């Protein structure tokens, strides 16, 4: 079989040859994704990272003096959020590899990156807001050339799929790794912040944890959410393949699904029929 025949045969196996998925995508959908991605925070400029590092130095010195304290909680200047400054990462040597575990998902990402830098690894970790069941997990990774050599897993194995806790992300990195990589860890959202990584709405710590919400009436689900301190600013209703985003729907509608939009805001998928 010639080179061209082989490729022609493979082309004829194209799963979407007769059904282009892009044809089903509405302009609104593209625009929504484009707009919302453009509104997400970008990595901090280097100068600002330096400023954070300088602010942290005295704290780390104090931390060394009080070595017995496992975790030191401080208020970061210019940021109301409290940071737990324990060992952010755990490094262990396994032959030609380094096993890195994200021990403290709440730590400042500058701390992660400092620890990577100390080991001459061009790897950065970033924290992005996620819904409660995703906090501490690593839902995304960016990478440079040859970073395929990095293996990502979790401890205990299968905890992501099972949704059990604790669930510690870990990375197996060749000791001679010279490429770059950008790993992302989900952190708790701050008030009013958009959620970037959403878990199942009935997952651990989520707005509808423990509720069998599918096919419940909107009014019933709203009552539960209100009791738990959540609001529903918007719905998604699909009729004849067209999705609208009304601010309200009749309480008799049925709930199909939902996701956390901000720390205390839920968007519900609803339909008139069960």
């Amino acid at each position: 079989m010639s080179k061209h025949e082989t490729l022609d045969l493979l082309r004829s196996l194209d799963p979407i040859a007769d059904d282009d998925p892009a044809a089903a995508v509405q302009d609104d959908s593209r625009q929504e994704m484009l707009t919302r991605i453009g509104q997400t925070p970008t990595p901090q400029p280097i100068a600002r990272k330096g400023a954070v590092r300088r602010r942290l130095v005295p704290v780390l010195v104090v931390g060394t003096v009080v070595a017995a304290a496992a975790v030191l909680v401080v208020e970061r200047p210019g940021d109301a959020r409290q940071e737990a400054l324990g060992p952010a990462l755990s490094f262990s040597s396994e032959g030609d590899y380094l096993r890195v575990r994200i021990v403290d998902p709440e730590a400042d990402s500058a701390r992660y990156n400092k620890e990577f830098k100390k080991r001459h690894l061009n790897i950065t970790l970033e924290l992005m807001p996620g819904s409660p069941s995703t906090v501490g997990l690593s839902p995304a990774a960016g990478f440079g050339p040859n970073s395929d050599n990095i293996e990502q897993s979790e401890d205990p194995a299968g905890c992501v799929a099972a949704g059990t806790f604790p669930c510690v992300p870990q990375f197996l990195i060749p000791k001679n790794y010279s490429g770059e990589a950008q790993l992302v860890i989900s952190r708790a959202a701050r008030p009013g912040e958009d959620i970037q990584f959403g878990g199942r709405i009935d997952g651990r710590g989520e707005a509808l944890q423990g509720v069998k919400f599918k096919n419940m009436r909107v009014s019933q689900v709203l009552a539960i959410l209100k009791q738990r301190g959540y609001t529903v600013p918007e719905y998604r209703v699909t009729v004849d393949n067209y999705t609208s985003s009304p601010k309200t729907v009749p309480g008799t509608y049925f709930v199909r699904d939902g996701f956390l939009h901000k720390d205390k805001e839920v968007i519900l998928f609803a339909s008139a029929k069960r």
Partner: protein
Amino acid sequence: MTHLLTRTRTGSGEASPVSEPPDPRLARFETLFTCHHDDVLRYVVRRLDVREDAADLVAETFLVAWRRLDDVPDKQALPWLYGVARRVLANHRRGETRRHGLADKLRDDLRTEPPVAEPALELQHAAEVLRQLSDADRELLSLVAWEGLDTTQLAAALGCSRNSAAVRLHRARRRLERLMDQTTTSGRQPAAVRGEHA
């Protein structure tokens, strides 16, 4: 090109839409997204069993691109995006995909089940052989046959040199051809072959 991102932001009351010049970073991302969204979507859908799952993976891919915009090469942006999507897809297969609020409309668009047609006998055989290849070989061949990449683009997608991409492609194609020949002459199902692994 109309800059949707810039327009949305200036329309929120922060500044006058007339006086504020477009943010070059937003404009660049919008160009990247507009030009390549559909290609990335096709790439992901081709490799998934459940079409609507593609929404979160496309969102994830462009989220990485947005956050690493300075790293996106001007000349090989689409292969670079394929490289990101490949990694995102690998995470998805390990069950590590999260639902993105920003992909909910796209998820709805993709919810319709595509028609499933029974392929011709020759194609069934080829499909079976393709499944027997290693993931890395299958990905190499798919990038060339389905996404239409040449060797330079393949190198950008895989993060390796052009020579290395050419050699890996050559080897993958030979393994495929050998399997095709073996199964055609023996009429037996092939055993899984060794190949490059992702």
